[in-house]
């Protein structure tokens, strides 16, 4: 009979209408600024630079190798090498960046830079409230540097793996150092 489907539809919308007042299954909206969903571990937004120790700029893992800048599909990373070298966590002398800028207006948050980095220095952040009151979209080294503790906090699994790998490397280097100085000295 004509109109049966209409009546069924009306009943359906009525169920939604009254159900939305008491059934949390029906009203799943999260009212964002007041309520927030718990963040997910594998979420990623813009990249950031990890530093070890206390001083953000002195402890940067980045060696200014520019692999990320070359691989970046959007060419949003700008790196200028510093002239002086500093020892890294293995005791090797390495260059460090003097300028490390990421143009947030261009970055498409693909995560390729984090994948290609051989020094576990650039990782993907989880911040998403990036709106500001000015148009400065270029993040400088000081804005990008974040501690390893922060990395452990936002991506615990990945951070644990990175820490373990680095500790292993450090142990090997230490063992090598302990063994090799003898022939080197002789």
């Amino acid at each position, binding site marked *: 009979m004509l109109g049966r489907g209409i009546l*069924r539809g009306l009943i359906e*919308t009525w169920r939604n209408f009254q159900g939305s007042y008491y059934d949390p299954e029906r009203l799943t909206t999260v009212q964002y600024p007041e309520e927030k969903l718990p963040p997910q571990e594998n979420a990623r937004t813009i990249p950031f630079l990890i530093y070890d120790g206390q001083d953000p700029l002195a402890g940067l893992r980045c060696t200014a190798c520019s692999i990320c800048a070359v691989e970046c599909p959007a060419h949003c990373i700008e790196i200028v090498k510093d002239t002086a070298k500093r020892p890294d966590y293995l005791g090797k002398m390495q260059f460090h960046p003097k300028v490390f800028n990421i143009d947030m207006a261009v970055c498409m948050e693909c995560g390729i830079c984090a994948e290609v980095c051989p020094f576990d220095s650039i990782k993907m952040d989880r911040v998403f409230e990036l709106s500001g009151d000015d148009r400065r979209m270029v993040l400088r080294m000081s804005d990008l540097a974040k501690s390893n503790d922060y990395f452990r906090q936002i991506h615990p699994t990945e951070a644990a793996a990175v820490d373990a790998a680095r500790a292993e490397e450090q142990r090997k280097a230490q063992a090598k150092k302990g063994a090799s100085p003898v022939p080197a000295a002789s």
Partner: protein
Amino acid sequence: MNAVDQIFVSTQHWLAGLAPASVRPLVSMLLIIAGLMAAFGTCFALTTVLERKTLGRMQNRFGPNRVGPFGLFQPLADAIKMLTKEDIVPFSADKILHFLAPLALTVPVWLAFAVLPFGRNMSAIELDAGILFFFAIGSASELAVFMAGWSSQNKYSLVGAMRAIAQMISYEVPLVLAGVPVLMAAGSLSLPDIVQAQSGFALGFVPHWNVFTPWGLAGFALFLIAATAESNRCPFDLPEGESELIAGYLTEYSGFKYALFFLGEYLGLFAVTGLAVTLFLGGWQAPAQWLEWLPSWGWFAAKFSALIFLFIWVRATLPRLRLDQLLNFAWKFLVPLALINLFVAAVWWKFPAAMAIRWLLCAGLLAVPYVWLGRHWNGVTPKPRHYGYAE
């Protein structure tokens, strides 16, 4: 009871009495106009926000809830936004018509409220041919819509206006025809008389409202469908189908003119809803004797709100029709049914008032064509349908 019932009438009389005798009739009229505009202006503001909230709930989300308690001040924010927007007139538009169209829509719509009885002794003017006046004024909105579409010099506007004309003229016919049995029953064209004719109770508890007769029920349904189409609401909102025509005849309007169109549309809906209440739901009459202590305007407002809710509910439920379906539906289904309904109403009044037999006969006379037309009005016999999403 009487004091509360007549509070608006007596206040208006008292205020008009303060004016000098020479301008008293004018002041009296202005007071009524101001009252109507204030009441239905507020109603418009409230409806916009409540409609959005209800739609939201029916789609399992909160509606607007940011401005004020429960988002009730949303219309204020909307009004400020509308008023501060740039008023753009297209370069090649017919500037005069483009300016006049929103006014031409809004003014007649306000006039339609003049004849509606909102309560006992509460109609602005008691015209002997009130319903004729109402329909005559109501059809003026078609002109305004076409003015808007034509003057915008925009193909979407023009197509929207064309659709609006086709739709409004088609649905005017079942709208009026659905109301005619009521006129036959009341024997009068005056709306207060029609309300009066529906007073009293059959068997002591069934009110004499037209909707409780077979022809009244059918007429009410036809009237509501035609009213939805007349006021360009979903599922008959083809003239402004956003997904097809951007916004139809509203495409080139912005700022306050757009708000005026909105106002006109909603007021048109209110007016035709008020008429539906008057014609079929007994106007301001209480549904039972022991409920008559509530003021008459309260009953009108209650029925009115219920119908507005129904319109919102339907809007949340149904998708938009196609243009050919829309016109076929009007001419091949609604108009024949409305004519049959006229005949059934005549049978009803010629039959001796032996309730059950008369009721069953008339209901059958309506149900058979309804089922038959429902199967064959489109020229194809429908197969059984499966509503996958509704199950």
